[in-house]
């Protein structure tokens, strides 16, 4: 069961590749964080999954083989773009009614309850709401269509800390109650750590790191030791990032999955890494990749 499967997926805008040769499979029931620097291709990937754009080459499927943008995919995929586009000159109630008319499945009771919780007046014009409230309304509409997959582009960017907290709580509630899968892009690393169980790191249009958060963390460790002994380390270690602090050096290295953990080299101490540190290390080294084994993202099967 995959909610998103991409094979050899590329998207080019004129001369610039936004995504290049991505292979990706995201399992059902997961909350996936999509991370990467600006221009890494996060929005493009989400737009492709929502069916708003078409791949240049390769293929992308959602919810076990549905073509994004097809009628069955649209019915069960919710999407909120980064600027939460809504009809600004319509009232909140009008916006809900339009959404009801445009969706075969629509939970109006939920939508109204959410709007009441947010204390949005139903008669207010959408354009008169603050940016955060517009984002909340867009999310409410996306959830009220009871999607199986929810795609959110930078949903936290326009929310204040309290709203962020509530928003993530809401998201987790929806995941727990209906078992929906969520893929969202974000720059807020601490929040990601709290709610994501999967992680996709994009850099310059390529998938740099993808996998379950726990596995990814277990697959990396930090070695700390004297700086002058770095040269004596075995060449197979291939550190992703080397940070020197005085006479001490910190090395983020990949451990070898499926093998016995090797003893730490002489003079070095081994520590587990944390998500934020790992992500920053990879963002700082765009060339480093840690693609998952075939059990996670093999080439797509026949569709």
């Amino acid at each position: 069961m995959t909610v998103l499967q991409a094979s050899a997926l590329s998207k080019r805008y004129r001369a610039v590749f936004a995504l290049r040769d991505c292979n990706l499979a995201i399992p059902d029931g997961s909350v996936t964080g999509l991370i990467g620097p600006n221009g890494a291709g996060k929005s493009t990937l989400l737009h492709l999954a929502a069916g708003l754009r078409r791949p240049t080459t390769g293929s992308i499927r959602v919810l076990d083989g549905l073509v994004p943008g097809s009628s069955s995919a649209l019915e069960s995929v919710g999407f909120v773009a980064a600027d939460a586009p809504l009809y600004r000159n319509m009232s909140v109630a009008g916006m809900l009614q339009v959404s009801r008319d445009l969706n075969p499945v629509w939970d109006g009771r939920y939508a109204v309850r959410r709007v009441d919780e947010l204390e949005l007046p139903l008669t207010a014009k959408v354009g008169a709401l603050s940016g955060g409230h517009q984002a909340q309304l867009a999310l409410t509409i996306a959830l009220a269509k009871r999607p199986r997959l929810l795609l959110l582009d930078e949903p936290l960017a326009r929310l204040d800390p309290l709203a962020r907290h509530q928003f993530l709580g809401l998201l987790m509630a929806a995941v727990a109650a209906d078992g929906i899968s969520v893929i969202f892009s974000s720059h807020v690393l601490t929040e990601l750590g709290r709610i994501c169980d999967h992680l996709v790191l994009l850099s310059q249009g390529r998938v740099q790191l993808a996998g379950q958060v726990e596995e990814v963390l277990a697959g990396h460790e930090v070695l700390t030791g004297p700086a002058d002994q770095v040269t004596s380390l075995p060449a197979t270690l291939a550190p992703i990032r080397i940070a020197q602090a005085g006479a001490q050096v910190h090395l983020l290295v990949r451990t070898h999955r499926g093998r016995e953990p090797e003893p730490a080299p002489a003079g070095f101490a081994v520590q587990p890494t944390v998500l934020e540190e790992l992500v920053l290390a990879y963002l700082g080294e765009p060339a480093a990749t840690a693609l998952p084994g075939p059990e996670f993202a093999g080439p797509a099967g026949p569709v």
Partner: protein
Amino acid sequence: MTSALTARTGALRRRIAGPRRPRLAMLRLVWRQHRGALSVLLSLSAVAIGALVLADLYDRRFPVHLWRTFLWQGYGPNYPDLAMQAIPLAAALFVGVPLIVPELEDGTANFAWTQGYGKARWALSKLAAAAAVLVPAAVVLGLVFGWWYRLYAPATGYFTMHAFALYAPALAGWTVLGLSLGMASAALARRERRAMALTLVGWVALHHYAVVGSPRTQPGALWPLQFIQLAILLAISGVLTSGVIVLIQGAPAIGGMPRLLRAVPTRAAPDAQVLARQLRRRPIMAGPRAAWRQHRAGLLIGLTVLGLYAAVLAITGLHIHAEPARLRPRYASFATLYLPGASTDGNFLLPLLLPFLIGPFAGASLTGPDLEQGTVRFAWAQGVTRSRWAAGKLAAVGCVLVAAAVATGLIFQWWDGPYLAERLADPWFGLYAPVYAGWMAVTLTAAALVGALTRTRTFAAVACLAGTLVAAAANAEFLRGHYLPTAVAVNRPAPPGSLFVNSYVRHAGALPSAIYTRVLQDFDNSTAWTGIERALTRYHATNILVYHPASQFWQLQAIESAALFALALLFGAATVWVIRRREA
């Protein structure tokens, strides 16, 4: 690949990183922001200049006394004059208004105002930059016009409305006035469409009142009066520009603070329970209802205009039907009898234009704004496929407008009943239901298609307005005569109510030109023909008159409306196809 890209962007990079070149900075900025509209206006001016030069070569072949004939037939300067006067108006609408409106709307003005340009200097230099591009073009066009018009001036005078405004000083003045009027409307309205409407109203009012001279003024006063006109127009521009500066000094741009500060309306919300129940229903009409909710404002304006026209028809029609036949007012002058103050000619020009005004704006709003503002990323992520989304909108809005056009067409048919005999000859062929509704459908779908292709509303609407008007004129002038076999009358008039197609004279010899005129004027008036026939016999000339008899009226209606609806279906299908292939 990468190195090629770097090489290509190398020059650009150097330019961006290079030292700043403060000279003409605003001119560059204005050109960069508005080059589309500016280059269209410059090309229009160039086309007008070219057309005048070509027309001069053509016109000089005719003896002087024939110019009057041309003028009478409407081939004289009237049409080109009107077209050329549209250039400064277009400058007002498409350069003057956008000079500052998008910046105020999106809040990029807040960016501009923090870049070391004061608000006043920002506004003034934008105006000056746009004027620096357009005024030279206006001066050249005005000079060429003056040279071309020398042939017509003795017959028509220098001071008719149309000609006077096109000499170089006046045209330059109107261009500057247009820009400042557009900008002032923009500063006042702060929304693009409102500002455009305000500009249009202001333009019409100023054209009515800010004109010097009259048709009776002596020719010698031309150039003094031209410069007086220029001075007046510049003075009004100055007042408008000061108004702009006062207005924009007052408030910040919309995109920034005020939206956050603006209080959210606190009307009591409807009962949540009731609304929730409402939201649960999923009727069959869901798609059309969504389209209606989104487009009702525009649709209501269109329906109101059509309704007003129908009301005028109903009131005057009741009067006409109540009169005994012999007291019935003459066809063309009915309005003076029953609607005091209305002008006698052109009564039906406006209703004839309605499909070309309503259709393009309604059609362009179906596709343009959603693509322009990015709300398609909302709409296309809902549970309806794009093809259904596009087809549903077109069908819903199209059905309403076409039904309204059919209804008004039927009311007109009832109104026109007492004048049945003149039906085909009258110019109001296009007001009957089949053709009226057909044009409504064509303009609507064409604008939806252009809106989908160009991702714009205003441009698509205006382009379709102009394009379909030209197409309709060409159809009436060149095509309608060929839809059915024609009848021919040799040296005799056509039966009353016929549609004139063409007329030839064989062995014209020394036949006075006035006879041509009378053949055209009275082609189906048998009493007037006695004199014409006598003249033709005297000069041994043969006149061949090609016409459609009145009995072909409904056939012609059917053929034309079938063609129009087929075209509309084609445009509609193309719109759906384009939307399917569009990327958000």
